[in-house]
Structures are given as structure tokens and as C-alpha cells.
């Protein structure tokens, strides 16, 4: 277990465990799938194979303005979005579900669209049943991993931000009081304890105070003393 929050900086995100992978495979029939394709024999093939796999699914066209919250995986036909200017507003950076692009062309225009949507998996037309199950699971695993990495990144970023602020507050305090950085940190910590606040919060207050009174950090503390 983690002893101090700082350990977060050393420990990477946990790799997927063997059990979580077999859980994912075992629970494939609990997935809710939305198929966004115009009606066609190809779409029928896809739906029939989802039926064989045993997933719960719906088909819609055109795509809804908002993806319903309970949906885990979205299949979307890419060409109509390009050619027929069908609205498909997909938040690629914070997607509401996994996205599997259904493509029939592989030209740069289509590939660009797939990349822009940040699809977690791709299937080609004509639909071949082989590979659909793997792609569904791959997309779920990929988005999970993406979300986990993003969360980890955000936590690290916040940590880093806080650490920079503490460093800055330490130098402000050290400069204005003519004390060592270690002593400055001690003072900040004492204040945090007294005010029942955190080191990060006190550091923020010092920084904003500095900004308000515009203390010149370039001023040498030793020079001020003299």
C-alpha cells in the first residue's frame, strides 16, 4: 500500500490483472451495444453476430444527439458521416462509451475520420463474423485503459502542480524572511496544522499574497538584511 502521497509519483498505473481480463470476457453478455448504421444487409449481418455472441444491442440511424448513459459500446458507420454529412457529435477525448468504427473504405479521408473520433477498434465491411467478439472486448479494454491512464495522469499532474507551488511558496517565504528553504517548509507545515489546512492550500495563500503585494523575488534576502 502507499505510505505517502508522494509514492504516487514512483508507482505507475497498475497493469490489468489476469482476473480482471477473465471477468471482462466472462461478462461480455452484460455489455450494452448501440449500432449506428443505416439499415442494410451488412448491418443485419453485424446485428445477427451480436445476437450469436449474446450481447444486448439496439440499432439507430441517424445517430442520436446524445448517447444514452447505459451504453457500453457504440458501433458507427463512418462513410455516411463523411459523405452524407450525418451529425455525429462524438467527444473523442472524454467519450461516453467505447467506439468501434465500421468502415468500407480505407482511404486517408476515412482513416482521418476514424483517428479523429479516437475509435478503440475498427471492423471492415463486408462484415466478417470472425473478429467481432475480440474487437468488442478490445474496445472495452482499450477505453478502460485509456480512462485509467487519464485518471492517473490527472492525479500526477495535480501532484506536480502542488509540488511546484510548494517550492514557490518556500522560496517566497525564505526570501522574505531570510530563512532557509527547510525552515520555510516547516513554517508552512505548522501553519497548515494550526489552520487545519493542507500544505498545498497554505502554499497557494502565500503565492497569492505574493502576487497581491508584488514582493520582488529577485530581491536578495541577504541584501535586504544588510
Amino acid at each position: 500500500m502507499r505510505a505517502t502521497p508522494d509514492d504516487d509519483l514512483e508507482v505507475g498505473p497498475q497493469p490489468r490483472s489476469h482476473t480482471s481480463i477473465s471477468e471482462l470476457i466472462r461478462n461480455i453478455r452484460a455489455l450494452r451495444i448501440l449500432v449506428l448504421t443505416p439499415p442494410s444487409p451488412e448491418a443485419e449481418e453485424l446485428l445477427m453476430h451480436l445476437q450469436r455472441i449474446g450481447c444486448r444491442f439496439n440499432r439507430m440511424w441517424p445517430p442520436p444527439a446524445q448517447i444514452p448513459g447505459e451504453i457500453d459500446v457504440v458501433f458507427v458507420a463512418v462513410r455516411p458521416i463523411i459523405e452524407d454529412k450525418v451529425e455525429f457529435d462524438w467527444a473523442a477525448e472524454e467519450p461516453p462509451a467505447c467506439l468501434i468504427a465500421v468502415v468500407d473504405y480505407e482511404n486517408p479521408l476515412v482513416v482521418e475520420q476514424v483517428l479523429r473520433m479516437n475509435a478503440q477498434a475498427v471492423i471492415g465491411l463486408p462484415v466478417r463474423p470472425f473478429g467481432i467478439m475480440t474487437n468488442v472486448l478490445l474496445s472495452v479494454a482499450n477505453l478502460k485503459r485509456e480512462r485509467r491512464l487519464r485518471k492517473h495522469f490527472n492525479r500526477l499532474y495535480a501532484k506536480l502542480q502542488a509540488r511546484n507551488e510548494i517550492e514557490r511558496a518556500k522560496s517566497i517565504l525564505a526570501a522574505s524572511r531570510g530563512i532557509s528553504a527547510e525552515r520555510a517548509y516547516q513554517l508552512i507545515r505548522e501553519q497548515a496544522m494550526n489552520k487545519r489546512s493542507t500544505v498545498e492550500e497554505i502554499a497557494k495563500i502565500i503565492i497569492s499574497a505574493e502576487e497581491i503585494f508584488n514582493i520582488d523575488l529577485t530581491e536578495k534576502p541577504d541584501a535586504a538584511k544588510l
Partner: protein
Amino acid sequence: MSKPDSQEPFRIGVLFSETGITAAMERSMLQAVTFAVEEVNATGGIDGRELVMVRYDAGSDPVYYNYLAEQLIVSDGVRVLFGCYRSSTRKAVIPVVERHNALLMYPAQYEGFEYSKNIIYGGAVANQNNAQLGDYLLKNFGARVFIVGSDYIWPREAGRTLSDLISLQKGETVGEVYMSMDVPQESLTELVARIRSAAPDAIFCNLVGPSIGLFYRAYAAAGLDPARMPIASLTTSETDIAAMGAEFAEGHLTSAPYFQSVGTEANLACLARLRAKYGADARTNMCWEAVYSQVHLVAQALRSAGTDNVDVLRRALIGSEFDAPQGRIRIDPETSHTYLWPRIGRADATGTLEVIQDSIRPVKPDPYLTSHQAIDWGMRDVSGGSAG
């Protein structure tokens, strides 16, 4: 393609191994095609048109299966093939039948997770043999299982499924060992010693080919007791038992939709005809029966379609039914697999697999089932009543 009024025969491709490591089982499957084709022809053929086999020996080698499937379709002009036993041989034929839009009738039990519009699957998938066997072992022997098998995808997936099944019911896999198909006797003797010290409640065995007999013999030589720690298999058939010697199989279990001892009228009549032709020793098994039934299903479909054009024939096949020796079977339109009648058999002193449990209804194939929770499969105990 051929006009319905043409009197030309319908040619079917037959691709089994008369030589090589799985020849014993595949020769039996070849006999089943031959026997069923003769039956079809003896009763008027396909509306007067003869059914003719074009056959090659695939030598138990996936490379030959691939090459000969191409030859059957391209050079011999065959549209429908019967063949393959191991998954590796089926996988070798799939690209060929898909490329040429031909049809493979695949009769063996296998690991599932497959669908091709160019294949009709006639053997059991996990929810038609493995799930029932797992339940039976848990209920009658205990929750600690040692898994052994040949080292390829089908025994491994069967092992994974059983392991998953028992772990969901608080069971435990105490060992899992996969060995090459030409494993020497010494290694199997060592394996039995290892199993003995692990002391499981049952051994789940999907060895394939000659290693089956070697393993059962090693078990007997170690003096282990099938009444307390049986070998339970999805593979070991009457044919394997005859090859190893009935005394080594006695008391051990097999789960399959068909055994020679099944007491249906269709089976009794079929066996009588078979014995009249091949003598009193003639023997059937789960794959024999699947091949036999698939030939009759195709014959029916050819009669109603009037052509072996694959798209037309396929439409006639899916959803069609046949009074098979195991009971009435039906090709599931959704999966192209077959509704089958799960059974648990126990080998007796004569090498007969006696039915000790059977299903009250045919079970719909579920080839994409990834999680085997406790489900009531409709199995019931059977006492006596087996045919000879």
C-alpha cells in the same frame, strides 16, 4: 448450377484421415459417410440422382486438408464437403470454403467461438457436453479436478471452460497438464503419479489419438479406482475404448450427445443395418453419428433445393431437422450449429458406454458462451434401458 431435371449424380467431397495420428477416429467417420451415402442411394438417391463421394486421405495433417479442400472444390468441382476432426484441420479448410463459397459439414465436437456461413457444425459445443459433465462431476464426485489434455486449442479451451465452471461453483483445479499427441508412455505414467499425489476427485481428460489409451492404461497400472476418481472425457469414444481394451476404460465417464448404446428406435434400426453390412462387431461413436446425420441432412436439403448451389442449399439446410440416432436434431438458423441431446456415459466391462444421464430436451447450441454459471440443463438420471 445443375438443373433439377438433370440425372447427373451429386458429388460430395470427403476429407478425413485414413492415415496419421487421428486415423482411428477418422476412419470411423469415413465409414459413416460411406454407410449414409449408401443408405441415401438405396432409397432412391436425391430424387433419382445418385450421391457420389469424391474422397481423399488427408493424412492427419492440416497442410493436406488445406490443399485437398482446394483440389476438391477447384479440380473436382465439389460444392459440399464432409470432413475434418481436429480444430487445426477445420481451421485449415475454412479459408478455402470461404474463398470459393463452398460448404463444409463439420461433424466433431469442438471449442466453439466460431461462425462461418460456409460451415454447418454438427458436433457438441461446451454447453452441450462440458457443462453437463462439470455439473455431474461436482454433484457425484467432488469439486477438486485435475485437467489433462493434448496440447492444442480444443483440449485447452475445454480445460479452461471446465476450470471456469467448477471455480464458479466453489470447485478447484488442482492441476492442468497438456501434452503432445505423440507423448510416450513414460510421461503418462509420470503424469498419473503426479495426479495420484494431487488426489483430485476426478480427472478431466481430453487427450486425443493414441495417447488416450496410453493414459487409461497408466491409470489402471497405478491401481487407481474409477469409482472414486474417474477419468471424465469429452473425447474418449467407443472407438478409443476398443483400441485400448475395454478393461482399461471400465468405470470411466464420457459426455457426448450420442453413444452406441442409445436406445432410440432410430439408433436401433441404424445399428441393425450397420451390422447387417459390416458384421456384428461394427461400431459407432459420437463423431460417427454426427457424420451419418449430416449426410442425411444434406440429402434432405438437396432434395428440397434441387441443387448444390451453396446459397440455395444452405437456406434449405438451416432450420432443417432429422431423426438422428441420438434423437431428433435441428440445425440452428442463428448459429449454424446443431441442437443436440447431451448424455453422460459410463464405460462397462464390454467397452460399451452406458447412458447414466440424459437430457429431457435437445439443447440449443451456444457456441459463444463465455461464462458457465449454474444452469439447469435438464439432465436426469437413467437406469438401465440401454440398447446393445
